[in-house]
């Protein structure tokens, strides 16, 4: 740590920049928090880290039974379709739910020591990324079992992950800002999330929506574009189209900017509102 540093409360860069600089300076704390999250989550469980992989697999199996047997869906390679939806959605919902929650419960900590407030959102992202990478393992397994050859378009996956991360971070920060003033945002959001998931074709094929409504139904939903960036290489075996990439980039970058600005401006008040 740097000795000889000076804290002058009158001399601060604009909040938006300051939060960014501080978040970078405290980056090793983010790593420690992520590590702490993951270690404590599995410390007392028998299956441990395996659970992260089994979770999406289990849901996929249930979905398979429901949609194959009950609804007689005939989507080819359905397990892959569901898994890609579950994994990408799971990341998004985990990050956006955890960010405001960890912030709200951080009272004892941020009352004592200075931590850049964005750290909680970043920690949620970090933990989410770890889980995301882990859940690619069962996906790869299923793809191998179904004899799906990997295609070059898999190289577009990092972009998909990046854009999903930016969107989740932005929304997480926005939710964190609101939660500080209205703690029931967290409960409202979990209901919104459930509805949103049903609207995003996570486990039903797009064709279920009548063609007349299909364009409006999906294109106005940011998660449609973001999930498609995962499905294109993993399920369809294509490179994502420029239109989709453009839409996804637009929505994720603007959400991040809005969320970041809103949060940074209010960050100072958190110490006595939480």
């Amino acid at each position, binding site marked *: 740590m740097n000795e000889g540093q000076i804290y002058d409360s009158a001399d601060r860069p604009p909040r938006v920049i300051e939060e960014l600089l501080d978040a970078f300076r*405290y980056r090793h704390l983010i790593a420690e928090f992520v590590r702490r999250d993951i*270690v404590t989550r599995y410390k007392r469980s028998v299956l441990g880290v395996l659970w992260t992989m089994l979770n999406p697999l289990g849901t996929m199996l249930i979905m398979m039974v429901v949609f194959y047997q009950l609804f007689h869906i005939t989507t080819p390679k359905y397990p892959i379709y569901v898994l890609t939806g579950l994994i990408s959605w799971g990341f998004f919902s985990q990050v956006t739910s955890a960010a405001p929650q960890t912030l709200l419960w951080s009272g004892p900590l941020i009352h*004592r*020591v200075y931590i850049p407030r964005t750290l909680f959102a970043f920690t949620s992202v970090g933990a989410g990324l770890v889980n995301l990478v882990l859940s690619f393992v069962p996906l790869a397994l299923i793809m191998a079992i179904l004899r799906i050859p990997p295609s070059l378009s898999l190289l577009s996956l990092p972009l998909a992950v990046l854009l999903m991360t930016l969107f989740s971070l932005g929304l997480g920060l926005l939710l964190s800002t609101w939660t500080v003033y209205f703690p029931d945002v967290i409960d409202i959001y979990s209901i919104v999330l459930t509805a949103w998931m049903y609207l995003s074709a996570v486990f039903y094929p797009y064709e279920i929506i009548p063609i007349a409504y299909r364009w409006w139904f999906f294109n106005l939903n940011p998660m449609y574009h973001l999930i498609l960036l995962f499905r294109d290489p993993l399920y369809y075996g294509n490179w994502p189209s420029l239109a989709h990439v453009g839409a996804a980039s637009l929505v994720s970058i603007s959400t991040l900017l809005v969320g970041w600005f809103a949060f940074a401006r209010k960050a100072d008040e958190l110490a006595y509102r939480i």
Partner: protein
Amino acid sequence: MSVVYRVTKERIASLKEYAIKRVRREVTHEQFWALRNVSLELSRGEVFGIVGRNGAGKSTMLKVLAKVIRPTEGRVWVKGHVAPLLEMGAGFHPELTGRENVYLYGALLGFTREEMEAKFQRIVDFAEIWDFIDNPLRTYSSGMVTRLGFSIATDVKPDVLIVDEILGVGDEAFQRKSRQRMLDFCDQDATVILVTHNAALMRSTCQRAMWLDRGEVKMIGSANEVADAYHSSTL
């Protein structure tokens, strides 16, 4: 090294039942001045005490110093590294082992894992908890937690050490050790700010002190003067 010059006031506004009252047109923002017109200058190597009744603003004072809260008016100027002493539940996580918590607390203070590894031996030696270092923190007594926390926070001499009334915990041997360490720091020009209700502790360790009452400075003077004045006010 630290010179602290401060003119601060601070306000906490609270909204109550915003939505309901909005409808009823009764929205009021209450203003609560936690600190008002506090002006103080500390120099290197001083041991400075802060006394006052509960709710007087002592903890707020420490938070302003530690950058946790920004002054609403005025200016805070601190030169050097500020180390707060954390209690259990703040930086520590009960499920993690003592070892893992050392790294975590260190990270909170701004140290990387490598830096903490270098200090690990010294820290656990001072806290004398080698037997328990790999057990989860929830199995520790509160005294052990304090020892570990103090040991980590003071392992690298901070320029400003903030102590908020918790050094009472711990057996006598440790109290002696920790007091000695604080005094060593002062010899090395660290500043210690001690918030306490214990007048005897203040008289014995502090040189100057401040008496806060309802957010305002009642008195700043030598430790004995302030202790006397505070004591007689509570009679």
